[in-house]
């Protein structure tokens, strides 16, 4: 009885194994036939395998056809034929919907379909303008495009066109006034998203800064809700520096002109040079100006330029102060002290200009 039960189990197991292997054998035979060029019945010709998630992979011929269509679509876009490009992208996607390139096809279709206003005429114009190299872009060409934009329907293409025009006025043609107007028109476009608003406001701020109005630039940033950004902080800093540059320039002018007018001009003579530049004074100047240069450059080679500039400017100021001092030797004490104080201010002003030029002001909190 036990032997019969074992025999029955073995027979059932063998039968189920044979049934499970049967389709695989059939598929294998179909594949072999396909490789031999024999078309059998309803075997799927375009399916060469399966992806990991079970989706059918396209055949090599379909992938080749898709690649050719993608190249055609790329060419159509680069030749500013967006309608043709859209049709080609759609055909490319249909040729092999599960291929690696299908995702790219989807993205390009979505991009072009979202910019189809005006029967693709505005987009074709935008694509043509984007291809214009900087060397051949002139004000007349850009202004003509800006005028054409006014006639296009509102939408993403017109907004992107406004961006192109504004950025080109500012960065490529260097016309901050027209850039300011273009950024203002871009900001007035309907349907701007937050990212576009930020770009337009920061471009407007750049244009206004170039026009010498950082306060208006900062106001534009704050109106766009960008008052707490790093760009706004830069504008505030730039505003402070403009004031400090003015003060430094006034201090230098006060010393140079005021010292001469108060009688220092008498020292600007060859005979005064001998009295002004005694060896002890030259030694003192070398210590005061050369010491930091030596220390700083030995400590950090990158600091040499800044300290060398400081030393040269300081030497020039010291020389002028010494000459003025020689010219004012017989002048009343008040005048001499006024010139000395103005020399002190001029040294501060020159130091500010040097540090500003070297980009060290940020580390000083200015």
């Amino acid at each position, binding site marked *: 009885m036990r032997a019969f039960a074992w025999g029955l189990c073995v027979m059932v197991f063998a039968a189920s194994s044979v049934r499970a292997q049967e389709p695989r054998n059939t598929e294998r035979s179909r594949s072999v036939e396909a490789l031999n060029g024999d078309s059998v019945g309803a075997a799927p010709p375009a399916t060469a395998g399966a992806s990991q998630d079970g989706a059918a992979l396209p055949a090599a011929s379909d992938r080749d056809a898709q690649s050719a269509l993608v190249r055609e679509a790329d060419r159509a876009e680069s030749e500013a034929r967006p309608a043709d490009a859209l049709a080609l992208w759609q055909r490319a996607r249909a040729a092999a919907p599960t291929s690696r390139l299908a995702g790219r096809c989807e993205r390009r279709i979505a991009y072009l379909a979202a910019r189809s206003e005006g029967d693709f005429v505005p987009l074709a114009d935008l694509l043509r303008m984007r291809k214009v190299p900087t060397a051949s872009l002139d004000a007349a060409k850009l202004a003509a495009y800006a005028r054409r934009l006014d006639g296009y329907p509102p939408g993403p293409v017109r907004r992107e066109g406004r961006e192109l025009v504004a950025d080109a006025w500012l960065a490529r043609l260097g016309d901050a006034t027209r850039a300011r107007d273009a950024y203002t028109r871009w900001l007035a476009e309907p349907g701007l998203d937050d990212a576009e608003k930020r770009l337009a406001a920061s471009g407007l701020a750049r244009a206004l800064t170039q026009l010498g109005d950082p306060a208006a630039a900062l106001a534009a940033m704050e109106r766009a809700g960008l008052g707490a950004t790093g760009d706004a902080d830069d504008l505030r800093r730039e505003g402070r520096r403009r004031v400090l540059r003015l003060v430094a320039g006034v201090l230098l002018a006060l010393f140079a002109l005021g010292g001469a007018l108060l009688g220092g001009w008498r020292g600007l003579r060859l005979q005064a040079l001998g009295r002004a530049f005694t060896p002890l004074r030259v030694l003192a100047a070398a210590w005061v100006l050369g010491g*930091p240069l030596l220390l700083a450059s030995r*400590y950090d080679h990158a600091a040499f330029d800044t300290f060398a500039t400081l030393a040269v400017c300081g030497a020039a100021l010291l020389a002028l102060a010494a000459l003025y001092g020689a010219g004012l030797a017989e002048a009343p004490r008040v005048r001499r002290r006024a010139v000395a104080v103005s020399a002190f201010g001029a040294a501060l002003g020159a130091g500010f200009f040097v540090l500003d030029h070297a980009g060290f002001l940020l580390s000083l909190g200015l």
Partner: protein
Amino acid sequence: MTQPPTRPEDARRTALSLAALTFGVTSSLAYAAQRVFERLRGGAGDPLLVVFDLHTAFYWRAATAAWWGGVAAILVFALASRPRGGALHDRVARVLGLVVVPLALVIAVTMWRLP
């Protein structure tokens, strides 16, 4: 009250003396100020490191302090060697005398606390 120097050589020697005194005081003070600044910024260090650590920073501090001392000495020399500066010499000497004693005390305490 000291008599103001009458001869130019004496005036020059007096100014040089004052400048040398200023150099010594100011450079020591500048060194101590740098150490105090480093202590405030970096906190207290391990005293053993004074022995074991590299002394590169010491040389930089000493060089910077010497420069400051030189600048102060130049200023004092320029002030003290001016014509009609006899009374000024006295004032400078008195001020330095008034300043040097407490400064020396401060420097001694600082060097004791901040090796």
